[in-house]
């Protein structure tokens, strides 16, 4: 009899428990949803800000303004028909060094010290009549052998001299490419379809600007 009486109480308790559980879950879901909505709202606000900023940048950098800057300072002009190349081969042909008769070029040994004489014989044209002394030095095979075997310990003391060398090497490089937007010394000459050597870079510039 008593078990019977308690059964209904258990039933009621379990129903209440289940309802409470359901309620807690739904509450949890609702709060999660609220958080999500807050994030979504933040996204929308951020998008709105992005739009405003984009609009501002677009307005400040509008094409009419860019054209005005171009007319005054940058002075890029439309590329002429000659500045277009057919392909990689023609591009390579444009930067090929001019041919020079190399009859007098002295023989260079493959084992010659790299820094000294590798560049000089190539650039030596027929105008340079005196034979370079470096070649005469390099002709001694015993010296070459000696230099090759003793060049290894040199990197041990690289710490101090290396740094000034590095900066010395960087500096001229920097000044050569400094400020590409700076007014050119001869804007009118460079803006036109210039010499074939400069045209690939020019072409790139003017295309990017359009």
């Amino acid at each position, binding site marked *: 009899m008593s078990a019977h009486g308690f059964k209904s109480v258990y039933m009621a308790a379990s129903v209440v428990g289940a309802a409470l559980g359901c309620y807690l879950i739904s509450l949890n879901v609702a709060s999660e949803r609220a958080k999500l909505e807050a994030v979504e*709202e933040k996204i929308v606000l951020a998008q709105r800000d992005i739009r405003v900023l*984009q609009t501002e940048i677009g*307005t400040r950098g509008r*094409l009419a303004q860019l054209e005005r800057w171009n007319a005054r300072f940058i002075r890029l002009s439309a590329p002429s028909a000659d500045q277009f190349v057919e392909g990689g081969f023609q591009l390579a042909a444009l930067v090929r060094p001019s041919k020079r008769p190399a009859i007098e070029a002295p023989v260079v040994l493959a084992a010659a010290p790299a820094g000294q004489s590798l560049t000089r014989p190539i650039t030596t044209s027929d105008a340079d009549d005196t034979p370079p002394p470096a070649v005469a030095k390099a002709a001694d095979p015993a010296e070459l052998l000696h230099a090759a075997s003793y060049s290894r310990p040199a990197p041990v003391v690289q710490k101090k001299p290396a740094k000034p060398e590095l900066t010395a090497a960087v500096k001229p490089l920097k000044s050569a490419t400094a400020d590409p937007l700076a007014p050119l010394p001869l804007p009118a000459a460079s803006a036109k379809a210039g010499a074939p050597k400069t045209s690939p870079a020019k072409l790139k510039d003017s295309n990017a600007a359009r």
Partner: protein
Amino acid sequence: MNAPTPALVARPERLRLVGQRRQVLAVMHQRLMFAMVVYGGIIALIVLRILWLAAFGDHAGRKEGVTALVPARGDIVDREGQPLARTIDAWTISLHPQKIIGNKLELARTLAGLMPEKDEAAYFALLKSDKTFFYLRRRAPPQLVQAINAIGEPGLALYREPDRLYPQTSLAAHVVGYTDVDGNGMAGAERAFDDRLSNPAVRGQPLELSISNRIQQALEGELEEAVAKFSAVGAAGVIMDIHTGEVLALTSLPQLNPNVAGQGSPEARFNRATLGVYELGSTFKPFTVAMAMDAGIIKSFGKMYNCPNELHVANRTINDTHPFGRACSVAEIMKESSNIGSAQIADQLGSERQKEFLKKMGFLDPIAIELKERGRTLTPGNQWNQIERMTVGYGHGIAVTPLHLASGYATLFNGGIYRPATILKVDRDHPAGKGHRVFSEETSYKMRALLRLVVTEGTGKKADAPGYRVGGKTGSAEKYYNRSLLVTTFAGVFPMEEPRYVIVVMLDEPNATPETFGFRTAGWNVAPVVSKTISRIAPMLGVRPDKRREPNMAEVLPFIRTESEH
């Protein structure tokens, strides 16, 4: 009998009282019961509602409709997606004179310092006014808003309201149009697509125009320079894709800044490219020749016409700027832009056929485009007799818009099919307009060489952009109300051996300069604009310059007599 008997009277009274009490009690019980049921019902309802809300309801802080950014009015972008018109929230400064608590004179002085468009007295008058509301500034810059806020006057209200902004300012102003202060489209695409832009269902998606910002800027830049150089009162320019009818650039000068459209002059608000109609002169001659070819009158460009120094028709005299004084071929007529020759071709064609061709090209109707600013063309109408057809043959006596002309050239060179012009980008959602054939494919093909000849040998030499194979025709027409004023036009197509784009440039009343040696005809002022514009835009349009490619010039060159021969 009449004497009252108390016992007999009192009893029924008491009895009645008891009966009444019982009745009253019963009613009270009933009422109490009813109140309890109502009370319980209400409580049950509330409980149920709370349970329902707990189970399925939304929480209190829920915000609706913020999950996506839908602007108050749709964006307008160009074909590459660059914005041309946007709606952003701008600060508005307003004044409520009733709510002012500070010293009004002091405040007027401060306001005049911050916003110098009105003086101190005017501000003071506003502050003392009986009205409740004034706009002091719409679209106020942030610094000004900060300064106004710092005054701390409750009568000065600051709030944000959606505002239409055109980031590219005057670029393509006549295509994009502008809105009034309440955001209703007043001109251009803003007016033509007002429903689409304000419809909440679709305004989240930007409206894509066929305009290309960069091409538009190139055309505007070059035209502006020409207008300044030749002191012209105005100009118009159109660049179109001849196969789809998409308008890539359309401009009308003087410029209009749609951000402050109200400040623009009526002249600036007038769209010369679609609303203004002009007699476009010799640019019509290619149509005359093509019509005659299609009608079987001209079978080869070698067909000869008698070209005297003057032609007298119906009390009028037709002149040439470069009179031949001999027989001349069709190729020569086109090269030297001979009115006399063209008039004879048109005469052979006849009024009916000429009218029919013009009708098919859309020259007798307002231009087919989405814009609402469309001009009615002026034609001879019912008076289409010999002299009329002759003058129409060389582009006089008929006034059309520059966009008509561009559309006509597109028809002539895309293989002979007329397509309505459109300012919407042609893609899957928006296919090109339905076309109909006007000229035969062969005519269209043969005309290429003829128009290329005009640029290589004839009046349009200055329009040539080396490598881009420009073909086209110059036109200089006198204004009908003052013959000393000119409208100069160049209609060109490139690349000529496989036409893809048409460009029409028009200058309104250009003057001569020392550089043009006193000339003010089209070959001297608009042709260079075309050349410069094409060299700028062709690489963007993917047209490769190639100096070795040309249309088949063997069609025309044999029929040109060189100067040394005569």
